[in-house]
């Protein structure tokens, strides 16, 4: 095959993915950046170039900062716990125990359910007085709590629900990785007289690192991307106590129709996710052994 032909083949193979990525990812991202430097068009007031005005407005917007801080705590609250839990569950259902297929299925069920359905189930769990949690607490004589109606508890409620939803999903990846791990490693370790904990710390966990990176990237994106439940449970309330960045972007774009400001917020979200992904790939990559 001539070199020119190979080039054409190469581009043809690359083509579909390239077109899709360009049309639905790169072009919108550039357009968003463009819109963030312009004002929103209104009656008698066409869109004009406003420089950094939108960014200045964003810095002055207390709701933006609240959403950002909430999102930070939401990420910190959900990511480590759901990954840890996923690993624990995967290790457990990887053992040879009776009914482990059912156990795996049970752990995976939350992932299968649509987020809105999940939110409606949890809305009942969190209902004051006759909701599930308050009924259980009632057995111990504890007072009814308005879980979703108090600024102090609402974000925690969302975090707990997200962990429940996400852990099963991440477990599948860990389980797949554990299944593909050669058994002779365990046998060799056993001959050497290596304890279970040491084996996990020195063999299993390092071998799982590529999976952990993958799961971590997904978890971080998920922490900024999953918002259906916020809309269904609290709509960001009370008084923005559960407002997350993407919920805010939706509100600004499709309720206030302030396209320019929504674009500005989107640029910030893109920057955050881009930076985090970059750090993960560059820094963690060095510490991961791919087989």
């Amino acid at each position, binding site marked *: 095959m001539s070199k020119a032909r190979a080039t054409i083949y190469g581009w043809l193979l690359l083509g579909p993915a390239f077109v899709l990525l360009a049309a639905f990812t790169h072009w919108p991202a550039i357009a968003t950046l463009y819109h963030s430097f312009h004002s929103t068009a209104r*009656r008698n007031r066409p869109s004009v170039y406003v420089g950094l005005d939108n960014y200045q407005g964003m810095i002055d917007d207390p709701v933006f900062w609240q959403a950002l801080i909430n999102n930070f705590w939401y990420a910190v609250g959900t990511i480590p716990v759901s990954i840890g839990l996923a690993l624990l569950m995967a290790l457990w259902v990887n053992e040879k125990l009776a009914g482990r297929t059912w156990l795996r299925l049970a752990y995976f069920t939350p992932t299968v359910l649509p987020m809105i359905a999940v939110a409606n189930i949890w809305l009942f769990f969190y209902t004051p007085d006759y909701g599930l949690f308050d009924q259980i607490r009632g057995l111990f004589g504890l007072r*009814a709590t308005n879980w979703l109606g108090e600024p102090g508890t609402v974000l925690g409620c969302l975090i707990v629900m997200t962990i429940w939803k996400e852990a099963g999903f991440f477990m599948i990846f860990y389980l797949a990785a554990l299944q593909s791990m050669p058994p002779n490693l365990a046998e060799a370790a056993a001959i050497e007289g290596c304890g279970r904990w040491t084996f996990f710390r020195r063999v299993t966990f390092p071998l799982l690192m590529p999976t952990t990176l993958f799961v971590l990237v997904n978890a971080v994106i998920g922490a900024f991307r999953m918002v259906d439940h916020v809309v269904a449970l609290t709509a960001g309330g009370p008084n923005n106590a559960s407002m997350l960045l993407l919920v805010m972007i939706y509100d600004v774009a499709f309720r206030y129709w302030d396209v320019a400001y929504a674009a500005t917020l989107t640029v910030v979200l893109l920057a955050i996710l881009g930076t985090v992904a970059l750090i993960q790939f560059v820094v963690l990559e060095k510490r991961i052994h791919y087989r």
Partner: protein
Amino acid sequence: MTVSKFGRRGFVAGGLAMAGAAKLAAPALAQGQTRLNFYYPVAVGGPITKLIDTMCADFERENPSIKVQPIYTGSYQDTIAKTLTALKSNDFPHFAILLSTDMFTLIDEDVIVPFDDSDQAWIKSFYPAFMENSQAEGKTWGIPFQRSTIVQYWNKELFKEAGLNPDVPPKTWADQIEIAQKLTKRDASGNTSQWGMQIPSSGFPYWLFQALTTQNDVRLMNPEGTRTFFDDPKVVEALQYWMDLSMKHKVHPTGIVEWGTTPRDFFERKVAIMWTTTGNLTNVRTNAKFDFGVGMMPFGRRGGSPTGGGNFYVFKKANAAERAAATAFAKFVTQPERAAQWGIDTGYVAVTPAAFETQRMKDYVAGFPAAAVARDQLPLAWAELSTHDNQRVTKALNDGLQAGLTGAKSAQVAMAEAQREAQRLLRPFQR
């Protein structure tokens, strides 16, 4: 599935219309066929989609030259999002049902046209309270269709248990506290097993709050939608009253009360009196396993409630013939008989006094007097909060209310901050 259904119906209706046009060979043919896309939301339970389909079919039968394609577009929120997006394309709605409070937003987006008000008799046939949210700049931008108000529902059994007259709900604000105190049950350890009353405060607390401000005789905005009065002492007083119900008198749950589970709290006897929309009437009638009452709101300085719900709007992108056809449709479905039937089928308040004068409605009200409560309250009702940049201004108020109700801010501070934010948002419209 949906597409094929519409396609088939479209084909049949088109065939019929052509046959009709050929026979009559009248102006209809000269004008050709007018096709209308009609976006509508569903915000309450019941077979709304079927009712709308039937309505459109009936209209087409009487107006063979017009074809109406009803397109269900989700909630009110989804519908306005889809409408504004579709209006930027070539496949757009010619008219739609959207929130009455979105009027200023739609004017500012420059997408709607006012209704031809040469037919003053029709414009004047609606309840004035509904027209407040439908007219601006001296023009009529919306035609009331699926409208509601807030009423109080009370559990007659719990009233009897508490030694109260089960047929008399609270009539005044002072009454209300006293009655709610008798209806609140606490055990020895201080747990409340039954609340006297609750007013939902999640999602859109401003609407229920507006019942309190209306009763306190204060408006939240000017008719032009360019100014708000959130820091008026009477508004602060109304919020203080709501906060006191839970914080001082302890007859109302603390924190934010979920709108969605409030009816359920009522069915579970966790609360004796609830405030919610007339749109819940059918829901309560089906699910309450006890005798319940539906009553007008109690009186503060006056009585009343804000109105709510959706209007017809006609879009600028429609041509003259399409606008006329859409207006004809709005006229058709707001005729007294049809408005009455729509009210009976859905629980919405029939939009004209004439609808309540029809035999059909009279028979219905005779069998189910609760259906007339909303009507009797309408003379006292005021327009729902609606301004330019409406959703944002409303959000400023919602945030303030929730800050007050969760105890994060005092009523005074919360309302002053909401007003400052609203003032900032509305400044460009005050020129």
